[in-house]
């Protein structure tokens, strides 16, 4: 097979499930990516941090018959070191320094020198905290992929009072080599597509929160099949009613992702098709910011649009930021400075 151009690959990745013609190319394109990685002996090390395991469960759903064996050549589908193997990822790290891909699922608790998550013990019986493994491996890795909102930004693990002081990977490792794939859990395509891009072409283009633009480029609200109801001011007030779910707490207007077009689990459904609002699980401040899940976000008065909100719009190139800002308060969006802005301010 002729090697795909990056442009073609991106086009395939961005294709929705409904675009059958393109999605048939999806598996061969990924198989090529993982095949290249296997040939080049480029390993993927997957480490589970403090998590529910939903991200690896979601990822497993992508194990397509044509993909699975080739995938298992570069990635141990056990997802976690076993007895006596806590050293194995370190060996991989040393042998493939600067090249291998490190995948982290789950948050990393920093409190008490990492005592809230002990990943194993060394040959002398000393505890090995997760934080040490992530820091050491992260320093050695070529690329670090944070899978899920916990690994990306802390997520469910980091909700106040956050007694374990759980953080996302970019809090510990040079954010320059971290790619965030938030979602609770993320769509399996987002994970395999990003891995495939790294293997074939290196790091994909990222938005201001470290998310690959090819998957997180659009607002849920803008591509929602219920958008017409919003335009016509028809709002559902209880489950099962026809209408936009804004009044029922939908966070689609602040959440980025391609769920409405990509769809989940066999391309036939997503949260909103369960007659439920989007809970904004790809947001850097999920779930703290997006709770209560079933309550409408506060209104905004137009003069109150903060520069931060404008900034987010500009950076992400979202044409309808003004539309979003009109409906939602600056307080919801303020404090959501991305990496670039952070570094500008010397944060």
């Amino acid at each position, binding site marked *: 097979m002729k090697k795909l151009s990056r442009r073609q690959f991106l086009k395939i990745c961005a294709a929705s499930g409904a675009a059958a013609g393109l999605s048939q190319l999806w598996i061969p394109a990924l198989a090529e990516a993982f095949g290249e990685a296997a040939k080049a002996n480029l390993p993927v090390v997957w480490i*589970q*941090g*403090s*998590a*529910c*395991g*939903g*991200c*690896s*469960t979601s990822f*497993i*759903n992508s*194990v397509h018959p044509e993909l699975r*064996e080739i995938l*298992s050549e570069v990635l141990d*589908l*056990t*997802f*976690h*070191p*076993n*007895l*006596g193997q806590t050293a194995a990822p370190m060996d991989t790290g040393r042998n493939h320094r600067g090249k291998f891909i490190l995948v982290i699922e789950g948050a990393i608790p920093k*409190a*008490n020198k990492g*005592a*809230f*998550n*002990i*990943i*194993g*013990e060394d040959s002398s*019986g000393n505890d090995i905290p997760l934080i040490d493994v992530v820091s050491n491996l992260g320093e050695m890795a070529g690329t670090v992929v944070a899978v899920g909102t916990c690994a990306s930004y802390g997520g*469910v693990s980091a*909700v106040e*009072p956050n*007694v*374990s002081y759980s953080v996302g990977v970019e809090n510990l490792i040079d954010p320059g080599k971290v790619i965030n794939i938030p979602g609770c*859990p993320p769509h399996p395509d987002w994970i395999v597509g990003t891995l495939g891009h790294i293997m074939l072409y290196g790091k994909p283009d990222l938005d201001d929160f470290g998310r690959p633009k090819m998957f997180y480029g659009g607002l849920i609200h803008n591509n929602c099949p219920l958008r017409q109801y919003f335009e016509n001011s028809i709002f559902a007030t*209880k*489950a*099962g009613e026809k209408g936009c779910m804004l009044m029922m707490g939908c966070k689609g207007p602040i959440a980025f992702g391609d769920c409405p077009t990509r769809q*989940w*689990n*066999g391309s*036939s*459904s*997503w*949260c*909103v*098709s*369960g*007659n*439920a609002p989007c*809970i904004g699980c790809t947001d850097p401040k999920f*779930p703290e910011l997006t*709770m*209560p*899940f079933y*309550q409408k976000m506060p209104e905004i008065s137009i003069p109150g649009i903060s520069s931060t909100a404008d900034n987010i719009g500009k950076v992400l190139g979202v044409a309808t930021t003004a539309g979003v800002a009109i409906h939602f308060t600056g307080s919801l969006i303020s404090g959501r400075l991305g990496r670039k802005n952070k570094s500008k301010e010397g944060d």
Partner: protein
Amino acid sequence: MPIVINPLNRCSRPLKILLNNHGSNAKAAEVSTTYYWDHSKTLKGKNPLDAILLSQRTNGTDFISHAIAAARALEEIAQVKIPENAQIIRNILLGLDIIYGHITHFYQYVLPDYIPIPRSGNPSGVDVDYRISSDVVEKMITHMWTSYEIRRTIHNLIALIGGKAPHVSNIVAGGVSKALSGPDAIRAKSMLRQVSDFINREYTHDIWQIKVAYRDFFNIGGWEGRLLTFGEFPQKENSNYYISPKALDESGLVNIQKSLLTVEYSGSYFEAETKGNSLKTQFRPVPDKAGGYSWTKGIVYSKQTYETGAVARMFLSGNKIIADLGTNAVSVMGRLRARLEECYRLAEQMRIWIDQLNPKERVASEFEIPKEGEAISFAESSGGSIVHCLSINKGKIDIYNIFDSYSWNICPTTYEGQRNPMERAITGIRIANNKYPIQVFRIIRSF
């Protein structure tokens, strides 16, 4: 020299195992979880409705069980009954979740302890007591790959009904948010058939092979065998249980009284912030707590540890195959067999449930969540019984304690010194190779 296994992977969360042995005999054991994973502090002060979505994030496999337990807690406080349609849809979702859990358990966690699977983490050059011939092994490895496809089909089906998987969006206080349409019901049945076929052919074949080759494991991995289930799959205004709540102790079968449930945390890394040992106890995590060895908050019934899960549900509901095993039911092979047995019953039952749905009837009861109230609710999951304890104060969550299958099966050593089922099951066993104690792996992963 004690044997330390840290971590043991291929479990629903990684475990640490410590065995004080005397030569090749295990004398005393400790089994514990290795990280803080608790949503009590997260949920405190939040809107009670958020518990349904947030508590699913306790477990990426048994998420339906948590959503249902959370919804039941809210419905109990409001004293609301959900429509029968909603009951049936929840039963279907929970049945699918349990089957998903059993297939994952067998093919992802258990199987590599019995046959050599490439890249499953078993070391080379160690005698791991493989007994199945290579041509059969080859077949079983093919089945393992098919199991991933079947798991995907199950999640597609869960998503068809519930929005997406893992973590569904359709379970709400009062019922579910979406009815299953006629065309979707037909689709669901055809997907269900694929799942049933896999259970009846591949899964059955593989359990059979292992059962025959490892018959001695019907005598390994047992303990006193106290079993418990809170019952599951309510139908027709809660009157007709497919599995009724029961416990089995040394005196025989007993009915369950909620008031006899208490927490056990002395061996955990949690300290109580309130007095007593009721399920409402509020905790704070203390990683360097003296005497602590586990991140699991335990739960006991009548001050005794109980085993929960498929073997408890099948045995206590009088499933003939499992009940006929007698005391051998609570063993490595008994547990594996009980999970398969449960899959048969659920797959059959789910077709009936789909036919019982009435598309014209409503799927949710409407109600306001009371500003004050308390509830203890239950749900079964593939790995065991789940208990949620909720207290609402001034319209916000004041207390939310979640107990899952690990709270039972690896309840940290009780105040009175009683050991949990997993620890009891590995105590006293003969270990062939202290460096790679495969017998211990098989017992632990059978839960």
